[in-house]
């Protein structure tokens, strides 16, 4: 089809790219569609009278909205406010990135700052400076990571099995949610059981409406909570059915039951709810984070979250997201840093969103890496999902940053999934909640996602959920049922999660349980990053673990396919190669290991077949073919050129064991050639034959059309270069000094 008048085929091509499905907008401050510095943002100010905060960001006490009022009473420290607010913005921005200013000094000063001040300062930092600040300011030294574990049919056995897989991969917090609210107790129970199968101590939560979520926690069916949302304008806060005071009491309610809890915020929410008051996203987020600290939450989940696509639609949106994450750390909060919603149809763009944060590190790199396939994610697809796990492992390996995950094979995962599914089935049966037959359990164990288990959801899950509530089933009942059915290890681990409530150690900032049940928190494991050689560094054992990805192949593995083809052609050296014995010949120069130690080319042809096609091609043109082995070089240009100087026609064809081939002529410089087929994986039998024919035509002084490789957009390097290195090493081991050898070719019968 012809392109429309005035348009190019390139433009039409662009329309087919995934990035063209992303729709972005210009800044529109009146709607709050602006990342930094809205013209409507207030100027930073504070006034302290008699030790009380009586003005915040241009608004005096009488006009305080609920957020201002709560911050004045519980948030901004009047003892530090005047000192902190008098600091020059740039000077403080530099302190954030300086290795010489300790984290604790930053925390002390931010206590006295207003939201407008903090957001203005963070707006001054470049992406790199935000990363530096993040590395220094996060609370816990050791990074961790959270998973989403959900499925579209709320299948409890699949939840349990996927929880086990997630913990085996290294996730330390698991978050679930449900499409059907009545399923929540059942799904929470299944998640709890599965989470303790591979190792003790992973924390679990079920994200539902605030009050229901608290009830699940009180019953011990969850061990932490995160869906405690706060917003940056009074109107949206109220629309979210809370106030700063109710949220503060909710936080205390969790503490009263020994349950870990963090608040949630994130830019874009106020825009989505239509009441951003024309303020910038970062300013409103500063109000959220300040409220989070003031209400006594130990941490926050922020960085876009549900509003990420709103933030992503405006210029500088991703820098704003990273600034939000940094902001949480400036308030001394546990930073659970988003990356939990797919923010683009483009793989490049969604990766670009997440990578800077990964390299900088945070308390939880994701507040929900989708450990299940995107279609099963009932939060909506995460920015990274089960489909991306191997990609993530590889990026972690490339950079050596602490991405917290480790590769696991089916040999490890399948037994764990089976154990989790069986334990969950036993508990549901013992408690008369649901039953599952063996066939369904088998489908769960090997499933990639819920489509492998069942097409539809029955009403049974909701009825089981109701029964858990009505019969007041708690974690203690789960422990009993596990034990009665012989799952003693899991019973003990679930009980230990209940026991930990007596201590409350995990209520401190950034607390998690390591797999040995030790507590890692801002108190036991404070971030001490202060430049090179300090802070968290992966141990050598951990780097080894990161390096072991599923795609890793040793040279032995890479070369294993060679031996079965040994002897596919017999190449016998009969003495030094003859020099230009006849004018009507093409010499085929073979590399040192060709048909000696290398038997299979990169395209999967044997070296024998490649050689047979070349010789046949030369002979089809009525030209004589002769084979010599070049032993002193593995460089293809040198092999071809050496052979050309032995050829009576001056034309030769050179080929390496891996299959790369060229046509050379004696009067050309060594590194020149007449034709080169460099992409060995793409050279099939017909092309070797055509190379032979073209070499013969060159020998006759003709100018044949060059052999073309098939069109391919696939990058050859990442797929073949490890093998190339292994094959070149074999060539190298066959190198020997001396003159080329005449070869007699015979074919095994």
């Amino acid at each position, binding site marked *: 089809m012809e392109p429309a008048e005035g348009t190019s085929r390139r433009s039409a091509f662009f329309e087919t790219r995934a990035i063209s499905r992303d729709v972005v907008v210009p800044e529109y401050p009146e709607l709050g569609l602006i990342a930094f510095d809205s013209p409507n943002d207030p100027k930073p100010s504070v006034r302290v009278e008699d030790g009380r905060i009586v003005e915040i960001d241009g608004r005096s006490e009488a006009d305080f909205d609920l957020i201002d009022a709560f911050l004045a009473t519980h948030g901004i420290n009047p003892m530090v406010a005047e000192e902190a607010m008098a600091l020059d913005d740039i000077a403080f921005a530099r302190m954030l990135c300086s290795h010489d200013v300790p984290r604790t000094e930053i925390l002390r000063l931010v206590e006295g700052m207003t939201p407008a001040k903090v957001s203005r300062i963070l707006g001054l930092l470049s992406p790199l400076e935000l990363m530096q600040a993040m590395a220094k300011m996060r609370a816990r030294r050791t990074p961790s990571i959270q998973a989403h574990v959900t499925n579209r049919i709320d299948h409890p056995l699949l939840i349990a099995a996927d929880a086990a897989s997630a913990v085996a991969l290294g996730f330390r917090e698991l978050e679930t949610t449900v499409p059907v609210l009545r399923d929540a107790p059942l799904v929470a129970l299944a998640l709890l059981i599965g989470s303790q199968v591979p190792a003790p101590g992973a924390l679990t939560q079920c994200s539902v409406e605030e009050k229901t979520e608290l009830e699940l926690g009180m019953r011990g069916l969850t061990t932490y909570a995160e869906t405690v949302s706060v917003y940056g304008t009074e109107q949206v806060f*109220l629309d979210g059915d809370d*106030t700063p005071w109710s949220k503060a009491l909710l936080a205390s309610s969790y503490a009263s039951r020994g349950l870990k809890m963090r608040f949630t915020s994130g830019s874009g929410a106020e825009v989505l709810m239509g009441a951003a008051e024309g303020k910038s996203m970062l300013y409103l987020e500063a109000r959220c984070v300040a409220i989070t600290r003031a209400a006594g*939450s130990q941490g926050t989940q922020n960085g876009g979250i549900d509003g990420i696509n709103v933030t992503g639609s405006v210029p500088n949106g991703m820098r704003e997201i990273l600034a939000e994450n940094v902001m949480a750390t400036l308030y001394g909060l546990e930073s659970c840093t988003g990356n939990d919603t797919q923010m683009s149809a483009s793989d490049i763009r969604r990766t670009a969103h997440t990578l800077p944060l990964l390299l900088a590190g945070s308390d939880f790199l994701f507040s929900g890496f989708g450990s299940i396939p995107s279609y099963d994610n009932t939060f909506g697809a995460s920015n990274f999902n089960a489909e991306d796990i191997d990609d993530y492992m590889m990026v972690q390996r490339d950079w050596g940053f602490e991405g917290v995950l480790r590769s696991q094979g089916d040999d490890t995962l399948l037994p764990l999934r089976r154990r989790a599914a069986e334990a969950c089935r036993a508990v549901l049966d013992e408690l008369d909640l649901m039953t599952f037959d063996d066939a369904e359990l088998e489908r769960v164990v090997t499933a990639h996602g819920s489509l492998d288990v069942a097409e539809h959801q029955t009403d049974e899950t909701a009825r089981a959920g109701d029964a858990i509530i009505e019969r007041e089933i708690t974690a203690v009942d789960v*422990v009993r049922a596990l034990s*009665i059915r012989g799952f003693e290890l899991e019973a003990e681990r679930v009980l230990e999660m209940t026991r930990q409530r*007596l201590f409350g150690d995990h209520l401190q900032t950034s607390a998690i349980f390591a797999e040995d049940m030790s507590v890692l928190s801002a*108190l036991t494991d404070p971030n001490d990053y202060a430049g090179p050689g300090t802070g968290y560094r992966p141990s050598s054992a951990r780097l080894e673990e990161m390096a072991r990805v599923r795609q890793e192949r040793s040279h032995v593995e890479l070369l294993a396919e060679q031996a079965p083809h040994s002897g596919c052609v017999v190449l016998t050296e009969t003495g030094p190669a003859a020099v230009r014995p006849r004018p009507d010949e093409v010499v085929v120069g073979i590399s040192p290991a060709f048909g000696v130690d290398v038997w299979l080319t990169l395209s999967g042809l044997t070296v024998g077949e490649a050689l047979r096609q070349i010789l046949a091609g030369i002979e089809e043109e009525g030209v004589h073919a002769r084979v010599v082995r070049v032993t002193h070089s593995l460089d293809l240009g040198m092999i071809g050129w050496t052979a050309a100087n032995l050829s009576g026609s001056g034309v030769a064809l050179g080929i390496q064991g891996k299959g790369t081939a060229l046509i050379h002529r004696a009067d050309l410089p060594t590194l020149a050639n007449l034709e080169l087929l460099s992409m060995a994986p793409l050279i099939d039998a017909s092309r070797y034959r055509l190379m032979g024919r073209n070499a013969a035509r060159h020998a006759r002084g003709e100018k044949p059309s060059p052999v073309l490789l098939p069109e391919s957009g696939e990058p050859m390097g990442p797929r073949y270069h490890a093998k190339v290195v292994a094959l070149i090493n074999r060539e190298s081991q066959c190198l020997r000094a001396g003159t080329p050898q005449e070869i007699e070719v015979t074919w095994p019968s």
Partner: protein
Amino acid sequence: MAELNYPLGEHNRADVRSQTGKAADELTVADIRAGTITSADAAVDPDTLRRQAEFAEQGGNPQLADNLRRGAELALFSDDDVLRFYDALRPGRSSVAELQTIAAELEAGGGVRCAALVHEAITHYTRRGLIS
């Protein structure tokens, strides 16, 4: 009483008791099966939360400390009460009088800090026209 050091589960595993006086390791699977241990035996003691509040304060977070102290107060109230208090503070749920009743109830049960929070809420909800 032994000195309590963070993390309590590591340093004071035997010293910390639940509200019913049980140490963590007295909560056993066997006793759960025998029915001599129930969920009530796993309730955190207010004094433990107050000790955690001190740790939080030493760690530089007085707001987290306040929260843990309010939690210590709520620890002695039933699940239903705690859920009811929270619900009452949400927008549009209660009149001034109803919130005052809750504050009084909290105070009567030793919840001085939580009661103060409710009084603050009454002040600001009224000022912002949320309740009457």
